[in-house]
């Protein structure tokens, strides 16, 4: 077990792409602490699988170094890094039984047979497949197969980390929940570093202690689920996390307040950095309050439609020319002539998509 340090990693799939400046990973400088549960969250093609494969050694980064603890493993092959990886589609060895599948990584490493026997028994119990130990693995269901993949990783008790590459994609919804609970349980028990790649925010937020949000080959924010929700460092994070995502509107900044279509909105961090390009205001729908027009400090909006999602309603409205969503609790009346007020503490200002930090 070790801390995984990514030291200024950059990766392009071919030298030509690198020369053209077209990097799949632009620059990652980050450490995964020993024993942490991390999620790499981002849309398809943002580089999260590339990053995962660089950690496991299936890819060698074009630039930068990876260290496990003090050891530089950049040039080491996957089997030398002592790492486990669970893939999107369950990988099992068809002709072997469940028990043989679990024993495979141990046999390859010439672990003594009694030790293999003991660990395989134990792991069968942990993943709940004791009764199927002698069945051929090919006849099992997708979630059982995925449990085997997971077990093959965990059976080597000394792995540095377990990497998950969207492991629940092919699993039925109700089994997803069961498997995720199993993962959390195993993490608590073994305390090994787990890195979990997903594009599903629910999966990421429920699994991980820290979520690494990636966008277009870059890490845009690393934080706890609360931090990602309250202070998205990049408009992409605001938009990607939360349902519906954060409202992002073009604005101007004058005398400590943001202006949208001539209306003044008090904010926490209203100051335009010198030379800033595009200024945007972000506010989560949870912090937009719908009030009657004429309420002091409110901004008039026109309501386009209301979506009832059961526990609450999503009001789609327009403020000036900008689209805006607001969450209204079930049972609360909707004013005929609507206006909105913003919770000033929840308003974030962005310059060129990046959060303008508060003055110290």
């Amino acid at each position, binding site marked *: 077990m070790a801390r995984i340090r990514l030291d200024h990693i950059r990766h392009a799939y071919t030298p030509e792409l690198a020369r053209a400046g077209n990097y799949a990973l632009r620059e990652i400088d980050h450490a995964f602490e020993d024993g942490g549960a991390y999620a790499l969250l981002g849309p398809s093609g943002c580089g999260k699988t590339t990053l995962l494969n660089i950690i496991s050694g*299936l890819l060698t980064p074009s630039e930068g170094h990876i260290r496990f603890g003090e050891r530089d493993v950049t040039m080491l092959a*996957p089997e030398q890094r002592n790492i486990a990886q669970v893939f*999107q589609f369950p*990988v099992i060895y068809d*002709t072997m039984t469940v028990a043989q599948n679990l024993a*495979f990584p141990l046999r*390859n490493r010439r672990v003594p047979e009694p030790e293999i026997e003991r660990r395989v028994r134990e792991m069968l119990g942990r993943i709940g497949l004791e009764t199927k130990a002698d*069945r*051929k693995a090919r006849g099992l269901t997708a979630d059982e197969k995925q449990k085997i993949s997971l077990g*093959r990783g965990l059976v080597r008790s000394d792995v540095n980390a377990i990497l998950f590459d969207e492991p629940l994609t092919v699993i039925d919804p109700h089994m997803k929940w069961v498997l995720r609970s199993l993962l959390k349980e195993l993490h608590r028990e073994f305390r090994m570093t787990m890195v979990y790649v997903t594009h599903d925010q629910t999966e990421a937020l429920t699994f991980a202690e820290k979520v690494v949000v990636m966008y277009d080959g870059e890490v845009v924010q690393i934080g706890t689920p609360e931090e990602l929700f309250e202070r998205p460092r990049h408009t992409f994070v605001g938009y990607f996390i939360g349902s519906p995502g954060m409202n992002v509107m073009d604005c101007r900044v004058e005398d400590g307040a943001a202006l949208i279509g001539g209306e003044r909105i008090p904010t926490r961090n209203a100051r335009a950095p010198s030379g800033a390009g595009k200024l945007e205001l972000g506010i989560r729908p949870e912090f937009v309050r719908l009030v009657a027009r004429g309420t002091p400090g409110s901004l008039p909006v026109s309501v386009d439609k209301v979506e009832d999602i059961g526990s609450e309603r999503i009001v789609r409205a327009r403020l000036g020319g900008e689209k805006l969503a607001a969450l209204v609790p079930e049972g609360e009346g909707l004013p005929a002539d609507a206006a909105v007020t913003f919770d000033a503490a929840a308003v974030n200002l962005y310059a060129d998509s990046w959060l303008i930090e508060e003055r110290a």
Partner: protein
Amino acid sequence: MEKTWNNKAWFMVLPVLVLVGFSAVIPLMTVVNYSVQDTFGNNDFFWAGTEWFTEILHSQRFHDALIRNLAFSAIILAIEIPLGILVALAMPKKGIWVPVCLVLMALPLLIPWNVVGTIWQVFGRTDIGLLGHTMAALGLDYNYVQDPVDAWVTVIVMDVWHWTSLVVLLCYAGLVSIPDAFYQAAKIDGASRWAVFRYIQLPKMGRVLLIAVLLRFMDSFMIYTEPFVVTGGGPGNSTTFLSIDLVKVAVGQFDVGPAAAMSLVYFLIILLMSWIFYTVMTNAGTDRRDEGAGH
């Protein structure tokens, strides 16, 4: 949903029945018809019962041809299947060489049987053939026209040259369909090259290998044109396979009765052997779930 019962729907399958009737059933029944009758010409036929079948099954000539055929099929399967797998494993999986390799592999398959025969017939001649002449120049005693062993070697090498590509292409199709994740998982599990082959590649190729074995068995068991062109069944009867013998009986001697009986026995042997191959190979790797579910 309410289903409509209308027996007129059977007319819809009539074209298929007619087609199958004319293309398969009627020709086959003609053979069956000949096999149980005798004739002395003039289109006069007499009932012969199982006479021809008894004669064929006890004929030494038929036994010899059958054994030669079985030996031939066994040898070419033993060479072409492993060789095909090896070549498929060695072929590139991506890049510009893939189409080049595929076209090269497909080339022998595009050559008509009798042309293949002619190529090797000339190729092996000691006077003008490149192979035969080179062998002679090297002091090797090679002559497929006179030496039965040389004749067999020539026919086998020719078949391997002609048909290994088919096995290669089928295996290659099986190999490229394996997702990368399997190889990556094997790497992470620390599997050796042999283990990757034994536990990933071979099981994933199982289905296509079954097809390859069946196709090559059936085809080699029915081989006619190439050995006929190269050796004409000789020297002596050493390369006279069942089909060559059959043609000699049917067309050469015009014994349609025995020839028809022989055809049917021949057909049933191929059917039986194919069924055995299929059953054995499909059961080989499957889960014995009935027993497994017991405990």
